[in-house]
């Protein structure tokens, strides 16, 4: 009989706790939209932050609560975008794929060096030394900081400048962060036209140091039927929301700085 007392006491304590918790869970019930859980389950759980939200759970909540686009998950690709759109009852849209592009054509035939650099073979180190060894202070230095960070091995140094193999690039953006001159653009892969220069120097200076540089002559701006190309700071900038890829600008550019990069 005495053995039953502790059992009964503990059972009673447990029962009281159980009842209290059940009551509390009703009082403090959090209404969660079940779509959030379903979207979160559909996402790849890479928590890469590539969508612009801090992790998959945050993105799932943003889709339901803030009306974020359904096709922002790049690791998941079109399949996940379709699933998310289906949960939200929207029409499926393909994921906008991004690729990296090096905005420089100042290779060893085009831009001379102002000094011979024999230090640590890294763009970041060289860039600290009089803004790099090239005459163009915003050009590609070619010491391969981007090559080393690329997880896909998609970047090669050809004639002294970095070139991205568009078929292998996944648009992760690591190279863009690694580049000390910030001349690697992460752009929509479907867009054909690109300004292949990052120089914002005065036109006469750019002309002196690189035959391929954009001098901001505004010929492309005047000839664009969509008004998608604008020259700011001596440099052409394309608005991809307006660009149709007609290629007029590439025909009129005297320096071949605005190019159809798929050609």
């Amino acid at each position, binding site marked *: 009989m005495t053995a039953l007392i502790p059992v009964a006491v*503990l059972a009673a304590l447990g029962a009281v706790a159980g009842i209290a918790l059940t009551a509390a869970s009703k009082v403090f*019930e*959090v209404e969660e939209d079940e779509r959030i859980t379903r979207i979160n389950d559909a996402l790849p759980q890479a928590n890469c932050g590539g969508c612009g939200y801090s992790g998959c759970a945050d993105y799932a909540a943003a889709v339901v609560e803030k009306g974020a686009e359904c096709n922002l998950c790049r690791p998941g690709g079109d399949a996940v975008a379709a699933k998310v759109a289906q949960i939200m009852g929207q029409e499926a849209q393909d994921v906008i794929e991004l690729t990296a592009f090096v905005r420089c054509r100042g290779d060893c035939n085009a831009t001379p060096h102002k000094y011979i650099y024999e230090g640590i073979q890294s763009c970041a180190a060289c860039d600290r030394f009089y803004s790099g060894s090239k005459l163009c202070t915003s050009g590609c230095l070619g010491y391969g900081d981007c090559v080393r960070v690329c997880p896909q091995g998609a970047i090669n140094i050809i004639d002294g400048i970095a070139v991205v193999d568009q078929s292998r690039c996944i648009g992760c953006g690591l190279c863009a962060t690694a580049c000390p001159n910030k001349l690697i653009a992460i752009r929509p892969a479907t867009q054909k036209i690109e300004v292949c220069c990052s120089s914002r120097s005065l036109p006469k200076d750019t002309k002196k140091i690189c035959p391929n540089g954009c001098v901001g002559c505004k010929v492309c701006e005047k000839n664009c039927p969509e008004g998608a190309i604008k020259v700011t700071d001596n440099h052409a900038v394309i608005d991809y929301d307006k660009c149709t890829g007609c290629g007029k600008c590439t025909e009129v550019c005297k320096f071949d700085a605005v190019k159809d990069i798929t050609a």
Partner: protein
Amino acid sequence: MSYIIIIVSCVFVNNIVLSQFMGICPFLGVSKQIKSSVGMGAAVIFVMVCASACTYPVYKLLDKLEITYLRTIAFILVIALFVQLVEMILKKKVPPLYRALGVYLPLITTNCAVLGVTIDNIDSEYGFLQSLTNAFGTGVAFTLALVLFSGVRARIADCDFPEAFSGAPSTLIAAAIVSLSFMGFSGII
């Protein structure tokens, strides 16, 4: 007067974390940011005070039935109940804090500081109000240790440690030094 002595004793002289080395897990886990350490401290104060209030009658009952050997399991049951309650309240009222605390919130259940304070209440033969004061003071002591240490960690994060010492080793060394500084309080009461 005895209440003031209890509070000073738990906050400074016998600091639960820095002198008695209980609750080290959340002390190292949640002290990365001052904000989350304050939240954790508040949750622990709530759990400690409520748990002490409940374990007092529970212990009286166990004592009467002469089954005090059950106190550990019975107390843990009570503590688990309050941790679950805190979790529900935070999830409903302060979701950002709920996410910031993460796994350390349910881990208050196994935070030995909470069980420690309820056992300490009994071993020190405190009355009901004294138990509550002791629990509150200990909770404040835990919060103080966490907030102090998160400040120290913010300074460590800015330091250029040798690679072998960066991360956990530097944190543990700093924890030891903070603990040493609290030895200055010993013998006051």
